[in-house]
């Protein structure tokens, strides 16, 4: 077990708390940077997709895991990011600028949705965001003069500083860099008073208000941040798809994003990465498993969504903290060995709380 002797408050503020952190994250960075040399094109593409999911997941995690506002409509922000980016690229705007514009447009729409949905919480908010996503999908399919509707929209090839990004490894490094930047920005928010205000709103709106947190401002801000980051993922997703049409951004995508956050572990950024790996690679694992399973099972229709659903139910029942929560328990088992007891992580009783005052 590691004992940290803290001598400065900076040690609580820094992202990397100790030598172990620096070593393991450094190693991870070296490994993902070296991945293009070791992996074939297919798996590199899949890893690229996982990282795109992870970026969207960071955005959704800020909203769901840290601000406590459930959204079932994040596919809409993905779509807005994707279409904005593709349309601007098509109009000859340089790659980086159109990327930034995609983020800003999504954030702006997100702020609008957040502002409208201010009075709603829980299931009502989920339904409102769901309605917004359907509205967006419909708008995109009807606005044929802009988006091409169901005929689709070809995504122009990206190029950075005059260098076309056509190879798989180039896209991979681009996504990797953006994921790292996004994660750092999100973690920065979380270690400052803005992030703490979000956490405060998640845990108790009434006392958040009483310590001077303006609920309207911070909820809208959380929506904007979340939507902006998801819009960035959308822009990258557009290049992955190559051809945009409204049916690429259905309710299932929203659900998958939420699933990623829940399975990974609500309330942790590492959970996002675990969740993204899960969402990204489960279809591959299923495809491999299909070859070995008897054909009656392997060819059954709806096998994939069925297994997704089953896993979601099992996670919520048996490990509400997701993969990240399970990892913490495994870690503390070894740290405390042989003193770990089953009760160590039993959920504590909650005491009576003030009834909702409004």
């Amino acid at each position, binding site marked *: 077990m590691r004992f940290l002797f803290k001598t400065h408050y*900076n040690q609580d503020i820094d992202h990397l708390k100790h030598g172990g952190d620096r070593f393991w994250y450094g190693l991870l960075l070296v490994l993902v940077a070296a991945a293009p040399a070791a992996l074939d094109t297919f798996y590199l593409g899949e890893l690229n997709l996982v990282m795109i999911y992870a970026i969207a997941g960071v955005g959704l995690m800020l909203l769901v895991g840290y601000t406590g506002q459930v959204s079932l409509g994040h596919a809409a922000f993905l779509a807005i990011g994707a279409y904005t980016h593709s349309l601007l690229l098509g109009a000859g705007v340089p790659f980086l600028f159109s990327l930034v514009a995609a983020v800003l447009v999504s954030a702006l729409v997100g702020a609008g949705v957040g502002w409208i949905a201010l009075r709603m919480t829980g299931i009502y908010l989920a339904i409102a965001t769901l309605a917004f996503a359907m509205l967006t999908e419909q708008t995109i399919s009807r606005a044929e003069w802009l988006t091409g509707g169901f005929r689709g929209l070809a995504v122009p090839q990206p190029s950075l500083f005059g260098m076309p990004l056509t190879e798989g490894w180039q896209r991979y490094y681009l996504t990797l860099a953006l994921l790292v930047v996004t994660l750092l920005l999100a973690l920065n928010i979380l270690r400052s008073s803005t992030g703490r205000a979000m956490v405060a709103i998640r845990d108790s709106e009434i006392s958040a208000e009483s310590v001077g947190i303006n609920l309207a401002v911070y909820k809208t801000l959380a929506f904007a941040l979340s939507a902006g980051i998801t819009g960035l993922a959308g822009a990258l997703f557009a290049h992955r798809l190559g051809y945009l049409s409204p049916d690429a951004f259905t309710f299932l995508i929203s659900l998958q994003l939420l699933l990623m956050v829940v399975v990974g572990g609500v309330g942790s950024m590492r959970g996002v990465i675990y969740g993204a790996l899960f969402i990204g690679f489960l279809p591959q694992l299923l495809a491999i498993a299909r070859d070995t399973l008897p054909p009656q099972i392997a060819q059954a229709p709806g096998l994939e969504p069925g297994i997704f659903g089953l896993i979601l139910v099992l996670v919520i029942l048996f490990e509400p903290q997701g993969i990240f929560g399970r990892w913490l328990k495994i870690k503390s088992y070894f740290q405390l060995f042989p003193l770990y007891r089953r009760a160590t992580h039993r959920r*504590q009783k909650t005491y009576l709380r003030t009834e909702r005052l409004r």
Partner: protein
Amino acid sequence: MSYLAVTDLSISFGGIRAVDDVSFEVEEGEVFAIIGPNGAGKTTLFNLVSGIYFPDGGSVRFAGRDITSLPAHRIAPLGLARTFQNIELFEHATVLQNLLIGRHVHRRSTALSHLLFLPAVRREELEHRRRVEDVIDLLELAHYREQRIANLPYGVRKVVEVGRALCLEPKLLLLDEPTSGLNPEESEDMGFWIEDINRDLGVTVVMVAHDMGLVSRVAGRVLALNEGRVIAEGSPADVQKNPAVVDAYLGAD
């Protein structure tokens, strides 16, 4: 002009006048207690003063400013902090984070600079942390600093909530039943802390309490409520002897 002046404050929920024409004044630097049987309107009165409810009539003035119609998040920065009867902490955050959230009104940097965590933000964070550590020292919370609220016993949560209110560096502190659910030893400690907060930090304290031992020890003046109305006001000894108060608690013959 007194520090906190509540004038003819009223609010109804449906047909019930929960707070009915209540007036009282609190002077700067005193400890003022509000007592009354269950349902007397004590907590509702607190919710009206701290901006969680808006009154049907009457006014609240704090430090010379009319705060009657200000929402809670605009009252807190004026120097008014509160605790809750049933504890409203941020359950899934650590004690340290809870106390840091209490520093919210003292933030100076913008969300954009937080995104980039500019050097100025780090300096500000260090400053917040230093102030929070002062509160941790005062309330002897060092042992629990890194623990999540969800894992803490009730008595410690009660103290953390007072700590969070202190992190606002308030001028006026509203304590809603600071000793309810505490054992005698913890109540004793809470009494000392309230005295310390009042005397050493110069914070004016208004508290709702049932524990008459605590009230007579720390409070200078007491206001007794029953069914939303003021029935007595004065020194703890006088109010305890007041026939209307005795009737309210024990019932008239």
